[in-house]
């Protein structure tokens, strides 16, 4: 078995689906960064360096798929809350459709 190949492949798959996972988690919910990472970990088996999520969130924000706002806390250290935008919602629906189609095609191959 080519372990290196499998390792590289899983890394690519993870990288590719991460934005899809994040948008799904944000659907109907608002989370701050750390909480969002906890949700990703809770709902998927993806083990990633937690920091990688921040550049992804910046990109999603730039694309207009998510919005964010700083909320002051008693601790004096504010939280940045992320939520899905309207455009993000419609994009996510398209992504879901694609995912379901692809999944069923792959299932046939397995």
């Amino acid at each position, binding site marked *: 078995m080519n372990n290196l190949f499998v390792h590289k492949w899983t890394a690519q798959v993870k990288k590719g689906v991460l934005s899809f996972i994040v948008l799904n988690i944000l659907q109907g919910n608002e989370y*701050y960064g750390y909480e969002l990472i906890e949700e990703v970990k809770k709902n998927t088996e993806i083990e990633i360096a937690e920091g990688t999520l921040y550049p992804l969130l910046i990109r999603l924000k730039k694309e207009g798929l998510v919005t964010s706002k700083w909320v002051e806390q008693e601790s004096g250290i504010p939280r940045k809350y992320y939520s899905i935008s309207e455009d993000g919602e419609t994009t996510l629906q398209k992504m879901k459709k694609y995912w379901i189609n692809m999944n069923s095609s792959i299932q046939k191959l397995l």
Partner: protein
Amino acid sequence: MKNIEFTSTTTERIYNDYLKRVEKCIAILSKEDKKEMLMEINSHIFEGIQRFSDNNETDNLLTVLEKLGMPEEFLKPVIANKKIAQAVSTFNPKDVLQALLLNFKNGIIYSVFALLYLLLFVFLFFIVTKLIFPSKTGLFYLDEKFKAFGFIKNTDGMNDILGFWFIPLVILSAIIFYLLITLLLRFTKKQ
């Protein structure tokens, strides 16, 4: 930005050191983006520490930082994107080169750009060869037909039709070429 308070100076040093690494990584970002990023990382560290029930702050901080990852690694995409944006707006060759190197891994398109820029440097190289070997560099015609452009080993019977006009012409073409590829890079970025 409000810093997280620690009781031990060792923990504080680890924390400050990490934030400094982040700051160093994102030095290229705008003041506003830098502040955002630092606040975000600071908030992450703070929230992470709050999850622990024991008081071993050094261990807890180290665990949070370890899970967060090395800033030099996880911040790479942010920097690479920013570099491209900067390069296409400033037209500074240093920025362009850095941007291409940072984005090289991101796809074949950037290797094409790297090649185009290399070609540009070849152009400029011709100016040097024209000064050192004037008779072997130029725009050469043989029997009124285009034969060669550049630095040629064997120019027997060929006619250099530009003479020393070759230099201003190459400079002008290099400028136009440079503007064109940088605009093309900007266009690719917008896609």
